[in-house]
């Protein structure tokens, strides 16, 4: 029986991914802050065919990343791990506040990287499985409107790149997921246009990429080319833009 662990299980992308895994009969370990939300989510996933749901109270800012956590999550092994927690800060509110900036970096990068450090060795010795981490296209280039979030995601992208390099030798697939604009509660306050994608689309791309891809998943696919163009703009020009 296949088993998956999902951190930030109540995020829209995580929910969509978990539903697809539930349809495949997975056992799911769901880790998130809000226990009431987890319980409703577990009902949903069980209804859809999940073999079982294990719930774990996990707070990216305070849950210690110790062996006890590792043992609980790992149990007898994982076929799939998704690290999906994160929050989109209000750039203007945090950019001149060192504590708030550090907190955002920890929630969006430090805690995710900590989880990867906790489980990398176990995946390596298991010799198979997939580790997917939600980064963002925002990490591809720093922009004045979003560089606190962007730099955290850049750290996630670079860390997972290195980890992929290490774990590819032992048959473990590490995926850096770079969604563009996703219609989710995190972005509920923003007007949606044609570039926006539904969480279902992102989830399908995450699960579709598990075999034999480069490991960097832009979702939807066209963001690879949008970001390519943005990355190609020379810095001396880029710094003058108001992006």
């Amino acid at each position, binding site marked *: 029986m296949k088993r998956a662990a999902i951190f930030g299980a*109540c995020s829209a992308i995580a929910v969509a991914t978990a539903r697809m895994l539930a349809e495949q009969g997975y056992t799911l370990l769901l880790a998130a802050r*809000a226990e009431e939300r987890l319980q409703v989510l577990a*009902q*949903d996933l069980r209804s*859809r065919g999940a073999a079982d749901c294990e719930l774990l109270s996990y707070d990216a800012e305070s849950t210690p990343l110790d062996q006890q956590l590792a043992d609980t999550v790992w149990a007898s092994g994982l076929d799939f791990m998704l690290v999906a927690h994160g929050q989109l800060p209000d750039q203007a509110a945090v950019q001149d506040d060192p504590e708030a900036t550090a907190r955002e970096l920890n929630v969006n990068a430090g805690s995710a990287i900590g989880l990867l450090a906790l489980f990398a060795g176990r995946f390596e010795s298991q010799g198979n499985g997939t580790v997917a981490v939600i980064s963002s296209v925002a990490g591809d280039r720093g922009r004045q409107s979003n560089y606190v979030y962007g730099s955290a995601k850049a750290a996630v992208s670079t860390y997972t790149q290195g980890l992929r390099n290490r774990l590819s030798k032992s048959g473990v697939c590490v995926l850096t997921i770079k969604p563009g604009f996703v219609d989710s*509660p995190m972005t509920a306050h*923003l*007007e949606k246009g044609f570039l926006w994608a539904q969480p279902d689309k992102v989830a399908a791309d995450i699960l579709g990429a598990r075999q034999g891809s480069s490991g960097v998943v832009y979702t939807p696919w066209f963001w690879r080319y949008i970001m390519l163009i943005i990355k190609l703009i020379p810095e001396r020009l880029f710094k003058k833009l108001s992006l």
Partner: protein
Amino acid sequence: MSFTSWGGLPEQPQIKKTISWRDQLPGVFGDAGLVVGMGRSYGDVPLSINGIVASARGLDRLLGFDSSTGLLHCEAGVSLGEILAFALPRGWSLPVVPGTQFCTVGGATANDVHGKNHHARGTFGRHVKSLLLQRSSGEQLHCSSQANVDWFSATIGGLGLTGVILELEIQLSRVDGPWLDTETIKFGELDEFFSLSEESDSSHEYNVAWIDCLSRKSRGHFTRANHSAAADPVSAHGTLFSVPFAPPVSPVNRFTLKAFNSLYYHRQQVSRRSGRESLVAWNFPLDRLNQWNRLYGKRGFRQYQCVVPEPAIKDLLACIRQSGDGSFLAVLKMFGDLASPGLLSFPRPGTTLALDFPWRGADTLALFKRLDQIVAAANGAIYPAKDAHMSGEDFRRAYPAWEQLEQHRDPVLKSQFWQRVTGESG
């Protein structure tokens, strides 16, 4: 986010907030003046009087499914399309679906929607076994035909005014597979529609007709269908085309309509054609044209849907023909006599006629007023979910239980529709 109803109302969009989890509800009451689903009501039913609505679409979790009885327990924001995608592969289906799958189960209940099988299954609300209603006072009411019965009948067809529906239990119906055996029959005049309808009501689960409302004799296509025994899976239903924006000038006008309708009528050469279509494709043809409402251009369109006794249909169609204002989507359906469970349910015995008109301001409104007179004289009713114009007087005549709904209304929830049709009486 900004929010307008499916018919593009109001001119100044409202603000839409989102509810994804129940713990967000206390913050919603007192802020948003109305809680909506996917905004597929056409007129001012989904518009709040304070300009802020909250969508419960994010409450989209299934809570349990009994595969032996077909009882589905879910949150109110689950869409009908999601339920079908879940249920059909498991051998179950929604017993009643409206013309779109892009509406929430809460919205379908709050408008007590009907489908092409009304004669066989009645309204959507008949298959709602229970619901959990959240009031702004903090009170939660479990409502069913056994408990809080008055709240149950006020909430079904209650236009979202009695509180926020959090969860429902829906009785699904057994099907062999996702297919329908369909048949389309051309008819040359209205009387043929009525005889086909009467003949088919006992033999077919689904019956509906499209009519060319600009033709003198109201010719059209009668389509009927039964669930097929075929069980092979359906490949995914994609969107055919997305209308990216509303063109400044609508391609739908009185000159193109006549041509459209004529072409549409003659697209089927033979008088009878049978086939097999997926339940989803057959029930929701317009869903494949994403944002089709934009085809009516910046000025938009209005829908007119009423139910009247059979003789009045002729008068309505004559009135429309005389006006020269056409409708491409003209749909006729005979309702059955299965009682609707809601205080304010629209379906009742008679024939329902639904038409889309390109909005031409005062001219369209004048036509609507003439149609209203025919409906009132025949003691018919206009469908609130589609309406943006009916008078308070017409509403209160056709929906005499409105005062009971007003007594059950949550004090912080009020739609522009409700203000409009109940306001005049003080």
